[in-house]
């Protein structure tokens, strides 16, 4: 299958995502420059981490005006799988492809460390290889990952089972010290109502090889590769 990895000026995890898709999982991948207007036949689109357009004004705020985002929006509306990682998640929020917004981390500190995540939903194309409740250890690196949704939206997200991953302790229990950024309901990842668009703050592409300190991120890539094979 063919991955499309979007590259904005200021993206810095694009090569990591490309490396994971091609070298680790043996799939095809193509870089999609932000000024491109088509997805070059990509069957899954990744919006990688980084600081798109310098994150001026707000994180992800400028990236939604890049020409490639029209193509990404159309692809998502047709049901195509889209994964936003870190800055990519922030861009999906600003573009309105996912609901809610990001605030500055509660600690005001940029957090760069491994976190524990509990898989809440396995009926998305990016978590279908996981068992419900499975615990993953995957790194984060962000200053604005404090997910916020107003109470009515938060209720809707929970009722629709759109929270995909939550920050927990190593045993899978939600506890304040293990929430690295203050996200409401310990949310680390959400999906849209149709479940084909997923945003996550942790970096699965940095956790696919033992040399990098863990392989729990493989599940995300294994899910999408097998989901596309079935389709």
């Amino acid at each position, binding site marked *: 299958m063919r991955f499309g990895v979007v590259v904005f000026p200021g993206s810095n995890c694009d090569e990591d995502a490309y490396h994971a898709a091609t070298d680790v999982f043996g799939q095809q991948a193509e870089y999609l420059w932000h000024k491109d207007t088509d997805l070059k036949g990509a069957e899954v689109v990744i919006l990688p981490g980084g600081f798109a357009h310098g994150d001026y004004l707000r994180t992800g*705020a400028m990236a939604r005006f890049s020409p490639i985002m029209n193509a990404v929006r159309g692809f998502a509306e047709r049901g195509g799988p889209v994964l936003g990682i870190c800055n990519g998640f922030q861009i999906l929020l600003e573009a309105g492809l996912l609901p809610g917004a990001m605030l500055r981390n509660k600690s005001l500190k940029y957090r760069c460390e491994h976190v524990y995540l509990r898989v809440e939903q396995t009926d998305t194309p990016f978590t279908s290889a996981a068992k419900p409740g499975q615990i993953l250890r995957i790194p984060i690196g962000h200053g604005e990952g404090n997910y916020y949704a107003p109470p009515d939206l938060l209720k809707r997200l929970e009722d629709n089972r759109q929270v995909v991953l939550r920050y927990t302790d190593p045993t899978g229990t939600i506890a304040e010290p293990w929430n690295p950024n203050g996200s409401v309901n310990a949310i680390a990842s959400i999906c849209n109502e149709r479940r084909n668009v997923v945003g996550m703050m942790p970096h699965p592409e940095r956790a696919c090889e033992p040399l990098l300190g863990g392989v729990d991120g493989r599940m995300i890539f294994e899910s999408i590769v097998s989901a596309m094979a079935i389709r």
Partner: protein
Amino acid sequence: MRARVFVTLKPSVFDPQGKTIADALHSLGYGAVADVRQGKYFELDLATNEAAQAKQLAAEVADKVLANPVIESYRIEVGD
């Protein structure tokens, strides 16, 4: 005509930067500063001399770009 747009986090949204600034002021002895909210300030030079039109244009720009309506609200002043 000039429009000034003040963007702040909504009152219901926690502002960790404002809180940190308030704490710093308290530690400097400014106990009378009860609370601080941090925001953003924009000056727009608009090619119009009509106040109503300027305000409408500034509001449109604020809605689309300058503020994120999920977490932020804004206030507009027009005039030179």
